[in-house]
Structures are given as structure tokens and as C-alpha cells.
């Protein structure tokens, strides 16, 4: 079920009605778990068992850790089990493809397994719970028992607003929030702001740009003008931001409607003035997860410069592979990892605060770097990427399509304005509500065709 579907509107209205109904008050958490499982099963009922398996293993491991029964062993088993599920179900095609002719019977069997929606997210939640429990950051549910702990674990992992595309919520942040919620406690400003913003970004910007960016395909790219190819890439850069921040924003708004707080996942990433700054602003929940659970355990920046560069590159390459089971994602991660390492080696990670002109140049440079990297996201075949770049360099004599450029600019302008005008500049709550009203008006007047969210594939 996707957020921009009629089925979801009906689903959400039913969930909220029952959730806050006085008669169902005692069963709020159970109801939310049930609703989340239904939400997941809507798309892939057969794979619900895998989600439940991951949640059950996570619950058993974290319960053992919290109870103090062989905590190190239990934590290790919990992490390994979740990583194994992720590796087996997500990277089966990559392994089979890489084996090529030597694929054999096992390889062919692997190719038959479908990719479960949201597997990257729910397995990372599982890892977070086990690790946070081991680190003593997760409080025990009161009264502490296997049933209650299992229920709370299920809610943390399957909570439908963030189940299929994040944001990735750390267990230490989510578990203490689990409890009885009252209708009067809802922060309606948060609900309206994030929901309207999210839907605007998704259905007005991303869905409309999606019609244009289908032209990022080769060999068709060979007949497009250089300017068109550049504009299409810029369009894709805007689209992927609007699509993913749109999803995260709707998730934050809906979670707030149910009384839960999810982390802000994007902070105007395209005004980052260094690659390190970009990763503090883009998919913040993943960046902080990778930093806390991978980069720091690898030694972070505490073991000298060379080890720091290696850690950055390894973490980013793995982060790239987390996004998708194709080597192009790993190369995309390497692109960023090497960028981060070079930037750090040159002492340029700290940005250029206080020097506006230099900062503007750096913002443009980082945007160009990031936008070029998205090509690896859009075209998983390296041959296509090279063809695209070659056409971009060679087709300067072909006349560009003014119409296409104008459409991309028209949809990019609101996104760049959003980056350049921080929300607090709108000042009063009244002005913010006026802006949300205008965005809602745009949703009514200019929605594109409904498309699935890009990050669903991850």
C-alpha cells in the first residue's frame, strides 16, 4: 500500500478512528501492530512471514540481552541473523548474476526469490534494537516479560509509517515512546506541516518530474542534446529528493497523528557546502545509523588519517550496497566515499561559513558532484552511464528541447526555493499555515500520475 493511493486514505482513517476510540484504548498498541501487518501484507502477503521471522528473532535476542542471559552471544546472534536475512533475500540476484554461467541449480533457485519490500529498513531496525539493548540504551517494558517485549518489538519494527522506506528510527529513540496515546496530545501543527509538505513534494514535484526523467535511458540518450541531458540529471536530482523527503515527511506527519515522533530525515541537503555536510543533511537517519553502528565500531577517525579514509570508503561502499543489490550502487557509495576521503585529506570538510562567495561555489560544486552520482542510481548498467556521459560531452550541436528544460525548471524552482528559504523565515504560524494551504492547492490542481516511491525498491 502506498501513501499516495486511495486505499491508504481509507486504511488510515480506519486505523485512526479505532486507535483513538475509547473502547479500544487498552488495545492501542496491539491494534497498531495488526494494522501495520495488514499494511505490509497488502502488497506482499507471502513475505509477511519473513518480516515476522526477523521481528521474532530480534525480539528473542533483545529479550535475552535485556534479561542478562548471555547478552554478548544473544546480541551477536541477533545482528548476524538480521544481516543474513538481508544478505540472503536482497543480494540473491546480485550473487546469481555475478556467478554468470556457473550459476548452477542453487543460483537459479536464488533468482526465483522476490525482493521483500522494506527489507533494508526492517532488518536495520532489528540490528538497532539488539545493539541498543546491549548498550543499555533501551528501557525494559514494564512489567517486563516476553509477551510484552515481543509486542513492543513488533510495533517498533512493523510500525507502518516507517516500515517500507524509513526513516530508520533507532530503538533507543522509539521504544521509550511506546505507550497509551491520547487524541488531545496530537501536535496538529506537525501533522499538517509534514503531511502537506510530503504530499506536495511527492505528487506535485516527484511524480511530474518522473515523466521527464524516463528519458534518462540509453541508447535513446544518444539523440538528446547536451543541455537536455544535463537538465534531465538536474531533474532527477530534484525528483529523488522530492520523492524520498516526500515519503519521510508523510511518515513523520502520520506518525505524529498516532502520537509517535520520527526523526527528521532531510535538512535541505542541496545547500551543503561539502560532501561531509551533504551526508549530515541527506537521509540523516541512515547516515547516523552507519556512523553509530559501523563507522565508529570500525575505529572512526581515531586510528590515524589513512585508517580514517579507508573507514569512510568502506562505510560508504556498504551504504551504497544497502541501497540496492547492484554493483552500480556500490560504485555510487565508493564515489561518495572517495569524495569524502579526498575532501578530508584536503581539509575541506569543514565548509566555508562566513565567506558567501566561496560557499556559493562550493554548494554548486557539491550539487554537481552529488547529481552526477545519481546517474549510477538511475542507470544500473555501467555501459549506459558511460554512453550518457559521452553523449553529454558530444551532443553540443543538437538543439535542446526548450519545453523539457522549462518543465524541469518549473518543478525544480519550488525545491530550490525550499532549500534557500528555511521554514523559520516564514515567521508566524499563520504564515506557515498559509503556505501549507497554497501547497495543498497545488496538490489539488497539479498532481502528477501516481507512482510508487523510488526508495520502495530498497
Amino acid at each position, binding site marked *: 500500500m502506498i501513501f499516495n493511493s486511495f486505499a491508504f486514505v481509507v486504511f488510515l482513517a480506519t486505523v485512526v478512528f479505532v486507535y483513538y476510540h475509547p473502547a479500544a484504548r487498552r488495545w492501542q498498541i496491539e491494534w497498531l501492530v495488526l494494522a501495520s501487518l495488514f499494511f505490509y501484507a497488502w502488497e506482499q502477503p507471502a513475505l509477511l512471514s519473513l518480516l515476522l521471522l526477523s521481528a521474532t528473532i530480534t525480539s528473542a535476542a533483545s529479550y535475552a540481552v535485556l534479561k542478562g542471559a548471555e547478552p554478548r552471544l544473544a546480541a551477536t546472534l541477533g545482528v548476524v541473523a538480521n544481516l543474513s536475512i538481508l544478505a540472503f533475500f536482497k543480494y540473491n540476484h546480485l550473487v546469481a548474476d555475478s556467478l554468470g554461467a556457473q550459476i548452477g541449480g542453487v543460483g537459479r533457485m536464488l533468482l526465483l526469490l522476490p525482493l521483500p519490500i522494506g527489507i533494508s529498513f526492517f532488518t536495520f531496525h532489528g540490528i538497532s534494537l539488539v545493539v541498543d539493548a546491549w548498550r543499555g540504551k533501551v528501557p525494559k517494558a514494564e512489567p517486563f516479560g516476553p509477551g510484552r517485549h515481543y509486542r513492543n518489538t513488533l510495533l517498533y519494527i512493523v510500525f507502518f509509517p516507517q516500515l517500507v522506506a524509513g526513516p530508520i528510527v533507532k530503538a533507543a529513540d522509539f521504544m521509550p515512546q511506546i505507550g497509551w496515546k491520547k487524541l488531545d496530545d*496530537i501536535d496538529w501543527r506537525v501533522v499538517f506541516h509534514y503531511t502537506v509538505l510530503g504530499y506536495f513534494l511527492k505528487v506535485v514535484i516527484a511524480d511530474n518530474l518522473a515523466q521527464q526523467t524516463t528519458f534518462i535511458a540509453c541508447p535513446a540518450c544518444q539523440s538528446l542534446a547536451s543541455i537536455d541531458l544535463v537538465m534531465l540529471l538536474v531533474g532527477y536530482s530534484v525528483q529523488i529528493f522530492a520523492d524520498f523527503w516526500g515519503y519521510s515527511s508523510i511518515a513523520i506527519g502520520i506518525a505524529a497523528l498516532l502520537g509517535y515522533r520520527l526523526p527528521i530525515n532531510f535538512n535541505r541537503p542541496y545547500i551543503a557546502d561539502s560532501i561531509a555536510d551533504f551526508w549530515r543533511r541527506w537521509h540523516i537517519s541512515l547516515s547516523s545509523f552507519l556512523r553509530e553502528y559501523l563507522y565508529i565500531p570500525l575505529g572512526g577517525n581515531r586510528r590515524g588519517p589513512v585508517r580514517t579514509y579507508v573507514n569512510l570508503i568502506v562505510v560508504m561502499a556498504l551504504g551504497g550496497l544497502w541501497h540496492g543489490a547492484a554493483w552500480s550502487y556500490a560504485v555510487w557509495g565508493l564515489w561518495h566515499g572517495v569524495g569524502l576521503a579526498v575532501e578530508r585529506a584536503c581539509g575541506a570538510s569543514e565548509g566555508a561559513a562566513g565567506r558567501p562567495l566561496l560557499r556559493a561555489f562550493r554548494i554548486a560544486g557539491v550539487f554537481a558532484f552529488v547529481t552526477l552520482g545519481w546517474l549510477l542510481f538511475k542507470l544500473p548498467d555501467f555501459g549506459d552511464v558511460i554512453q550518457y556521459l559521452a553523449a553529454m560531452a558530444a551532443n553540443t550541436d543538437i538543439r535542446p528541447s526548450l*519545453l523539457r528544460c*522549462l518543465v524541469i525548471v518549473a518543478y525544480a524552482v519550488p525545491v530550490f526555493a525550499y532549500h534557500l528559504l528555511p521554514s523559520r523565515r516564514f515567521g508566524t504560524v499563520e504564515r506557515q499555515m498559509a503556505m501549507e494551504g497554497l501547497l495543498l492547492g497545488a496538490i*489539488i490542481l497539479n498532481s502528477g500520475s501516481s507512482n510508487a516511491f523510488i526508495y520502495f525498491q530498497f
Partner: protein
Amino acid sequence: MRSFISSSRAVLGWAVAAVTIYATAIEIGRPRIMLHPDQHSYNLARAERALLAEGTPSTVIVGSSLGVRVPDDWLPRDWLNLSFGGKGATTGLALLEASPLRPRRVVVEVNTVDVPMDKVLAAEASGPIPLPLRRSVRGLRIEYRPINLLLSGFGALRSGAAPSPRSGNLQAACEALPRSADPTSQEVVAREIQRQLEAPVPAGLDRSVSELQAAVSRLAMQGTEVVLLEWPVDPQVAAGPRQTAIRNAVREAMPGLRWVSPKPNEFQTEDGLHLAPLSARRVACELVRELSA
């Protein structure tokens, strides 16, 4: 709850105000939409026009992007062009059946009969804003989306935009069309022609022709005149395996139907299949003349 009421009232109030102002401006200005951001938006706006069934068109053309090349104002006012980019005639026929339109004559393009029917276009064009509301509020229609307005405004400003024939003076406009050839790139034409020479998959063609035959029979039962239309394409493409197979299959399945193939003395295509702008206008004039005869 007080916070909910004040927030929702303010946000909805601004949204309603924005939509009302926009819809009023559209109602007063009645802008002419000439450009759409992409093929899909164009298709949806066309499908919406059929579903809203404004006016009573005497003739409806159903077909593909070949027919899209013909501008509306180069066809008589009571004609409706239901050609869709990337689709075939069966999609237009399905939409016609779903709409309340009952034209006297339906002109069915045969060149792309092998393209499968799109069964979701009508559903997509029908939502999410209810059609009755769109019928009465022009500003809520797909056709009048702000992006279309922006692009059409830009198109009107561009110098060299093709002039539109004055209303009711189509014949004079046809006679006044310049006799010069359309500028085309021979390299592009040669490359695209190679792509057009592949023969259609026989099973797929048979299925599509059967669907077409069934739709044509239903129209005939309602008393609608059905005319088969073969748009002129590059001679190499016309003689190629795809067009030949389609032509033979349609002729065999529907032997008694009138077949028109408007061919002006000179025409150019941009890619072997799609008519260049000036040629498209000439062909439109020729089609209108043939069907009026």
C-alpha cells in the same frame, strides 16, 4: 481538538482560496492550451476531454502519436481528435465506449493497430477529482493544470509559433499553406526507419485486430459510420514488413469498410513515421477534403 480545528480551518481556507482564484481566472480567461509537459499529460487531457463529452462531435479520430501531430485547429470544429501518444486506435475506441460521446463517424487509424490497448487510461483520467465537478469547474481539469498554462503561455510568446487558422476559415488556411518542404534531418529519418522495419509479432497483431474488429462491430451496431485511416508515412516504412502486415491483417478482417489514405503531393516525416509540422497540416487538409467529399 481546538488546535486541530484552527489548523485545519486555516490550511483548508488558504487551499480553497487558492483553488477558487485559479479556477475563476481560468473561467474568465479561457486560455488556449497548446502545450503539455509530456506525452502522458497530453493523453490524460485528451481522455478527460472525451469523458467530459463537451459538445457533440460529428467525427472522432482514434489513433496514435501519428494523429497527435495534427493540430486541433486544423480540423473542423466539430471533430474530436482522440489520438494518444504511445497508444493505438483500440485505446481511443475503448475510451469512446466509456464516454457518453456518440459521434456520427469514427475514423480509425490503422498504422499502429499492433499497439496493445491501454486499459487504465480511462480510469486514470477519471480521477481523483470527480468528473461532474471538473465538468462545471474548468480550472480543476487536467487540461488546465498550471504547468500546461505556463507552457502554453511560453509557447505563445515564442516567435515562429505556427499560426492557427481563423475560425471557420479552414479551407482558406489550407490553400494558404506554404509549398515549401519541412526541414528534416535525413540522418535521424534513416536511423528511425530501421526501427520501424521490424515485423509485428503475429499473435499480438491477431489479438489487436480482433479487439479492433469487435469495437468496430459495436460502433456499427449503434449506427456509427467507421472509416479506416492510413496516415502517410515514409515510402520505405510503408512498404516495410510492419506496415504491410498490419495493412493486410486489417483489410482481411474488415473488408467492407471505407479506407482513406490522405496523401498530399509532398510530405516529410521526422522519423519515417511521424509527420513533420507543415506536412501534418497538409495531410489534415487532405483528410478533411476526402471525408467531406
